[in-house]
């Protein structure tokens, strides 16, 4: 291990019991194997803890079945789709270097599939219907067979329809072939998800009929009076004018909220509360997985510092934080070291603060943790529309948010410290972006490679271009001066250092633990714009939805940079299958590898991809209801 941060090896003191292929019927809130053993607790205490864990399956051969099952999270019986009769499905424990076989039987009356999220494997084992394979027909068994070439925390989920929303997900933990650079005494998977009693198809239909259906945080008259009394009429009018002209809401954080969602931790509602035990002085590894359909979570454990040691299964140079945002499909492993006997609250609030889930890390199962209040609701700022706010003067705002005005914006010599934007979808527009100030993008402009592209590790130096397909009724906004998404903790977290002295993880904090494998410069750059029309509830890439899009072609072996520009006000977690997304966080020697990258609203972010996996791959936003449109097929061709 070449890194300066290499840690010494130590044996794990506690492992999960190696439960056999359990076909036990899972009843919500009832029996399931606890993920720990060997601690001298009384029978009754242990019994109380029995309901909280995940069933673990390990070995090389796995039999998984997909079934309908009646579950009850909210007091109402609802039909779920489940893997091996439980939500989440069983935790699969693999070992790096081994070959695994997974026989997946589909007992549903519709096609199904399982995708192994973040696992590098042959294309036809990836489990994406229409791209990797046909899908698993009703009554059929599909056999996945591949060798495991990585270690860390991952997960699996259905890639068919909206089945994931109704319960089809589970954790994967892969033990390293060699010793683990991360030292810990005990570990838990902490799987976060969202549950709705509504059919996902019905949620999607409601969003198409009224896109703010689930948003009960819109501006009201009461807010208006408060703002006027705080800031005066003129300032209030100016601050609101841009949003009102653009027909957009600064309260538009999540499409689907706690109004319909119950947030779960390892399948437990906040009423139940998952519990994990520790003994003081232990190093506890928590493997956080966001397996929600639509919910981004902000996680913290009041009273404990968290040392982030892995991101998307990949070891990183340890970073000590108080809080982190976990996008849908991301994973983060953290180490905590509770030094006193106590019950600590593992608190996961949704990005929109409409709900939370929690569990406790406790020295005694009888102890209940103190559940903190949720943080205030985030309100979108102008920067989330992709406007540069440096020295902003509301009087000199140049923008275009209308749908039908005649527009010809001359941006030549334009002061990019004033804001510009265009949120319309039609009309004549001429935008000259020459002389654009990229200083706001946190890049070193002096570092340019031979190809003229920004140096590997430092991100894009290219102009932001809005191509013609981004103009039309399907796109309601374009970010004119997107910021770097790297140093931004994200909406609702930006002031936490100042307000609460909570250090929030940003992508800029992440460095790979091991040196960058492919040190080549990118030979080309692909700029992709994440686009949508919020009120029509349409999502697309470059203004083109998946159904109409040509695949993204990569040449086998090439090193490319993908720059994602978020032209919406939503936070999109983008997931590339089959290959690593090597996030350019400013250190070319230790570029971290991720499978899912959050793109903040109105911002841009770049990663490098080595196209080392032949075949057809999925590339999409992992918000389930954005995915049908915000999706691309990536084709890696032999040169």
């Amino acid at each position, binding site marked *: 291990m070449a890194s300066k941060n290499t840690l010494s090896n130590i044996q794990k003191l506690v492992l999960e019991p190696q439960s056999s292929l359990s076909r036990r019927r899972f009843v919500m809130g009832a029996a399931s194997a606890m993920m720990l053993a060997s601690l001298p607790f009384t029978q009754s205490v242990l019994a109380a803890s029995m309901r909280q864990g995940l069933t673990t399956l390990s070995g090389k051969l796995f039999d998984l079945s997909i079934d309908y099952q009646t579950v009850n999270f909210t007091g109402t019986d609802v039909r779920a789709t489940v893997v091996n009769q439980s939500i989440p499905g069983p935790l699969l424990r693999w070992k790096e270097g081994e070959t695994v076989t997974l026989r997946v039987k589909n007992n549903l009356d519709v096609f199904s599939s399982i995708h192994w999220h973040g696992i590098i494997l042959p294309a036809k084992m990836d489990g994406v219907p229409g791209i990797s394979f046909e899908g698993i027909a009703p009554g059929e068994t599909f056999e996945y067979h591949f060798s495991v070439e990585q270690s860390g925390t991952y997960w699996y989920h259905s890639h068919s329809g909206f089945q994931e929303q109704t319960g089809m997900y589970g954790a994967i933990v892969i033990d390293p072939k060699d010793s683990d650079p991360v030292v810990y005494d005990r570990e838990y998977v902490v799987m976060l998800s969202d549950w709705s009693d509504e059919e996902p198809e019905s949620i*999607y239909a409601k969003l198409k009929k009224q896109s703010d259906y689930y948003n*009960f945080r819109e501006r*009201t*008259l*009461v807010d208006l009076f408060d703002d006027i009394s705080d800031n005066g009429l003129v300032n209030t009018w100016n601050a609101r004018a841009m949003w*009102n002209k653009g027909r957009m809401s600064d309260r538009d954080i999540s499409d689907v909220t706690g109004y319909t969602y119950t947030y779960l931790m390892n399948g437990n509602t906040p009423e139940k509360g998952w519990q994990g035990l520790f003994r003081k002085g232990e190093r506890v590894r928590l493997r956080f997985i966001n397996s929600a359909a639509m919910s981004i979570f902000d996680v913290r454990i009041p009273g404990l510092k968290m040392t982030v040691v892995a991101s998307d299964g990949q070891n990183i140079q340890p970073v000590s934080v108080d809080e982190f945002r976990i996008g849908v499909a991301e994973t983060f492993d953290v180490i905590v070291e509770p030094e006193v006997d106590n019950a600590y609250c593992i608190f996961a609030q949704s990005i929109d603060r409409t709900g939370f889930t929690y569990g406790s890390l406790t020295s005694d199962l009888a102890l209940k943790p103190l559940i903190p209040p949720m943080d205030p609701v985030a309100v979108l700022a102008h920067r989330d529309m992709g406007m540069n706010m440096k020295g902003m003067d509301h009087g000199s705002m140049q923008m275009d948010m209308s*749908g*039908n005005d005649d527009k010809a914006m001359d941006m030549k010599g334009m002061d990019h410290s004033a804001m510009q934007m265009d949120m319309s979808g039609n009309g004549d527009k001429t935008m000259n972006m020459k002389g654009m100030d990229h200083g706001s993008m946190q890049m070193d402009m002096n570092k340019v490679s031979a190809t003229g592209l920004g140096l590997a590790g430092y991100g894009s130096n290219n102009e932001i271009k809005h191509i013609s397909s981004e103009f039309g009724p399907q796109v309601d906004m374009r970010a004119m001066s997107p910021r770097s998404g790297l140093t931004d903790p994200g909406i609702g977290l930006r002031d936490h250092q100042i307000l609460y002295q909570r250090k929030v993880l940003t992508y800029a904090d992440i460095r790979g633990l091991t040196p960058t494998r492919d040190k080549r410069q990118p030979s080309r750059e692909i700029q992709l714009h994440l686009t949508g029309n919020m009120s029509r509830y349409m999502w697309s890439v470059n203004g083109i939805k998946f159904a109409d899009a040509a695949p993204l072609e990569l040449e086998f072996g090439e090193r490319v940079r993908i720059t994602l520009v978020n032209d919406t006000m939503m936070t999109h977690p983008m997931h590339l299958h089959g290959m690593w997304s090597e996030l350019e966080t400013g250190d070319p020697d230790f570029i971290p590898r991720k499978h899912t990258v959050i793109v903040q609203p109105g911002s841009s972010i770049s990663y490098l991809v080595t196209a080392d996996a032949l075949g057809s791959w999925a590339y999409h936003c992992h918000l389930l209801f954005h995915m*049908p449109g915000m999706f691309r097929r990536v084709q890696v061709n032999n040169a």
Partner: protein
Amino acid sequence: MNTNLINRYPFIAIVLLTLAIFSSVDTAFGAETDDPLLAKVMIDEFENSLSTDSTTSWGAQGWLGYDLNKLWIKTEGEYSGGEVVDAEIQALYSRAIAPYWDLQMGLRRDLKPSPSRDWAVLGIQGLAPYFFEIDAALYVGKEGRTAMSFSSEYELLITQKLILTPEIEMNFYGQNDPEVGIGSGLSDFGAGLRLRYEIVREFAPYIGVNWSKKFGNTADYARDEGEEDSETQFVVGLRAWF
């Protein structure tokens, strides 16, 4: 719905049946499509005036289609003194032309007052800056008849569920049509204010007040019939969609 109600409100019944057909469309879609065939039925207004003549009026829209292309049905009318006195229905093809705007074209039939009139419609519907909902249309009928309508509505949230909706509506006609009591120029103008409470998104009772006034020859025709040329009504009603 009992038969009595159907007898008393024939046009409402027809409209509701049409809309029910819409809503029975199954929302069938898989992973492949982001754009399923959907239908929405919105009864914007279904209200009774609190005055002695107890007028019932309705305004509803329904659409069937996809993100950018829809079949759109609109209807509005009035039931008073035991009969339908005013009823129109429009069937339109609606196409998105901008992020917030749909171009709509099709046919309108004025069923009441008699004799009925048919029109070709070219309209625009959408959301203007500052969140004004706009519905404007031009109409061309037989015998050189032309007309224009404009309505606008704004939703003011007092709380997340208590919503105040001011609304204006006006109609213009190109020529006199004494048979149906319409005069050329601005024929009528209406302003309404409704306060609704959304018990759930889809279901909201409301109270409101309507003021309307007839102008020009239309006002003369009305006076000839012994009607007032302006009126103020307090209403209770229901807004619902599915």
